[in-house]
C-alpha cells in the first residue's frame, strides 16, 4: 500500500490522500472509491473511519481518495464558486473523479457518503455515468406505517426506561448538554424524486448499498422500513442493505465500526450478493 497527498480541483484548493494498493495486488476493473467529509469532520473521517476503510480497500486491491471539500478540514476555501454549499460539494466531488481519471486513468468510481455526505454522493451518482457504485450510510429515510407502529411500542422497551432513569441521575449540566446535542435536522428530496433516481440508477447498472443505524431512530426504526419506504421499486434482493439498530450514527463503538468496514469492503469488492442483513 502507498499513500500520497494530492491537491486538485477548482483553484487547486482541495487536499486529499490517495491510498493505492501494491501494484501486484491491483484488482482489475475495480472502481476507485471516493470519500469526503462527514459533517465537519475532516477527511480522516469520524473515529478515523475513512483511513481504515481506505487501507482495508488497498489490501483488497482498490484505490481510494479521501479528501476535504473546500473550506473544510485541510482544504482552503474557494474564492469563486458561489455560496451554495451543496452545489460546491457536487462540483468538487466531480473534480475528484476528474483528477483520478486524468492522473490515474481511473474510469469507474464508487462513492461512499455518510450522513450529510450522502447528499453530494447521491447527486453526483445520478449525474455522472462514471459512477458505477454508491453506498449511502444513514441517508434518506421516510416514515412508514411500520415506523409509526413501532414508535409507540418503544415505551414498552426496558432498555429505554433504564436509559431514561439513568439520565435523571446525571448532574444537571451533563444532562442538559446531552439533550442539546440531540438537536439535528436534514432536508430530504421528495420521495417520488428519490424513487425515480434509484430506478434510473438501477437501470444504469449502478451497484447500490444502503446502511442505516439506530442513530436514525427518529425517522428509521425497523429493518423492513427500507423496503417499505421505497416499495414501488421492489428493492429486496436488488441492492445491498444492512440495518445496524445498535450502532450509533458515527459508529463510535469499535465493534460496530469493524462491522461497517467489513460490509463496505465486501460491497466494494463485489463479493457479497445483494441481500438484506441484520445488524
Amino acid at each position, binding site marked *: 500500500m502507498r*499513500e*500520497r*497527498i494530492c*491537491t486538485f480541483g477548482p483553484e487547486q484548493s482541495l*487536499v486529499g*490522500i490517495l491510498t493505492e494498493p501494491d501494484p501486484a495486488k491491483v484488482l482489475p476493473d475495480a472502481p476507485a472509491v471516493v470519500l469526503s467529509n462527514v459533517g*465537519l*469532520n*475532516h*477527511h*480522516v473521517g*469520524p*473515529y*478515523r473511519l475513512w*483511513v*481504515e476503510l481506505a487501507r482495508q480497500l488497498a489490501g483488497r486491491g482498490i484505490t481510494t481518495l479521501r479528501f476535504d471539500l473546500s473550506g473544510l*478540514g*485541510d482544504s*482552503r476555501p474557494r474564492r469563486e464558486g458561489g455560496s451554495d454549499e451543496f452545489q460546491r460539494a457536487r462540483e468538487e466531488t466531480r473534480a475528484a473523479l476528474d483528477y483520478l481519471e486524468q492522473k490515474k486513468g481511473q474510469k469507474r468510481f464508487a462513492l461512499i457518503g455518510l450522513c450529510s455526505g450522502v447528499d453530494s454522493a447521491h447527486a453526483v451518482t445520478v449525474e455522472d455515468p462514471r459512477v458505477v457504485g454508491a453506498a449511502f450510510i444513514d441517508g434518506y429515510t421516510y416514515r412508514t406505517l411500520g415506523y409509526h407502529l413501532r414508535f409507540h411500542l418503544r415505551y414498552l422497551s426496558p*432498555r*429505554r426506561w433504564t*436509559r431514561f432513569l*439513568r*439520565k435523571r441521575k*446525571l448532574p444537571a*449540566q*451533563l*444532562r442538559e*448538554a*446531552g439533550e*442539546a*446535542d*440531540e438537536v439535528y435536522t436534514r432536508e430530504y428530496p421528495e420521495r417520488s424524486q428519490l424513487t425515480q433516481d434509484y430506478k434510473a440508477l438501477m437501470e444504469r447498472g449502478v451497484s447500490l448499498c444502503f446502511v442505516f443505524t*439506530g*442513530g436514525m*431512530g427518529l425517522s428509521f426504526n425497523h429493518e423492513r422500513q427500507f423496503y417499505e419506504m421505497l416499495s414501488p421499486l421492489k428493492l429486496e434482493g436488488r441492492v445491498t442493505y444492512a440495518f445496524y439498530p*445498535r450502532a*450509533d450514527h*458515527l459508529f*463510535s*463503538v*469499535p465493534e460496530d*465500526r469493524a462491522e461497517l468496514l467489513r460490509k463496505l469492503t465486501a460491497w466494494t469488492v463485489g463479493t457479497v450478493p445483494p441481500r438484506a442483513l441484520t445488524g
Partner: protein
Amino acid sequence: MTPCFFGTSERQLFGIHHPAQGAERATGVVLCYPAAQEYMLTHWAFRKLAGMLAREGFHVFRFDYYGTGDSAGEAHEGRVATWVQDIRNAANELQDVTGVQRVALVGFRLGAALAVRAAVEGLSTAALVLWEPLVQGEAWLQELELLQARRATRTLFPQPESPLEVREELLGFPFPRALRDDILALDLAALPAWPSTRTHLVAGAPRPEYQRLQEHLERTGLPFQHHLVPEEGAGGQESALLSNRSLQTITTLLKEAA
C-alpha cells in the same frame, strides 16, 4: 497550507506546514494535537490557530501522531514515548523546511503533556504553551470516563460493563493497556525537572490541578504565566475547544515571546 508526509517511508507521518505570511519570524511553532475524541473535536480549532499564527509571521506545523489521523500505524499502536518522538521529528521537519532557528510548542490536553515531555527530553523550545493541559494522567482518564458515561445516557447503548484496562477502549477509540499505563504515569506537577523556557498555561476555568502545576513551577523559579480565558457561550468542554478567545490569547502570547 502545504501538506506533506515526513519521517521514514515505513513510518510516515502526515503534517501540514502553514508558511509565514509577511515578515517571517525566526521562531516557528509546532502544534501538538490532543488524542482520541479530543483530536476529532479540535482539528478545526488547530487549523484556525495555525492560520492566525501564520498571519503573524510564524511558520507553523501541525501533524498527526503515529497511529492517528493520516499518519501510518494502527490506532492501537499509540504510545506516549512514540508520540513524544513524533514531536521532535515534527520540530526538525519545520526547521529543515523553513530554516527557523527556534521552535515554540503549543499543546492541547494530552498534547500539552507530550510537549512538556519532548522539551524535558532535550528538544530546545522558545516557549511552551499548555492549553487546557493534562496535568495528571489519572484525572484526565477519569474525566473522559465521565464523558463516556454521558454518551451512554444520550444513546440506547449500555454503559461500558468492564473497566478501561479490560475493554481497552475509550470514547470509541482503541485505548490499549500499555497506553493507559503510559498516561497514568504522567504528572506534570511532579516532574523533577522542567524545561528551561517560558511556560504559559491557558485555560478557560480554574482547576485544582492547574493550581498544583502553578505552585510546582513557581518553586522551579522558571518564567511561568497562568492565563485564564473565560469560555464563550454556554460553557462546557466543547465550547472551550472552539473558543476564539483562547486562540487569540495564544497568538498574542507567542508574538510577545518571539
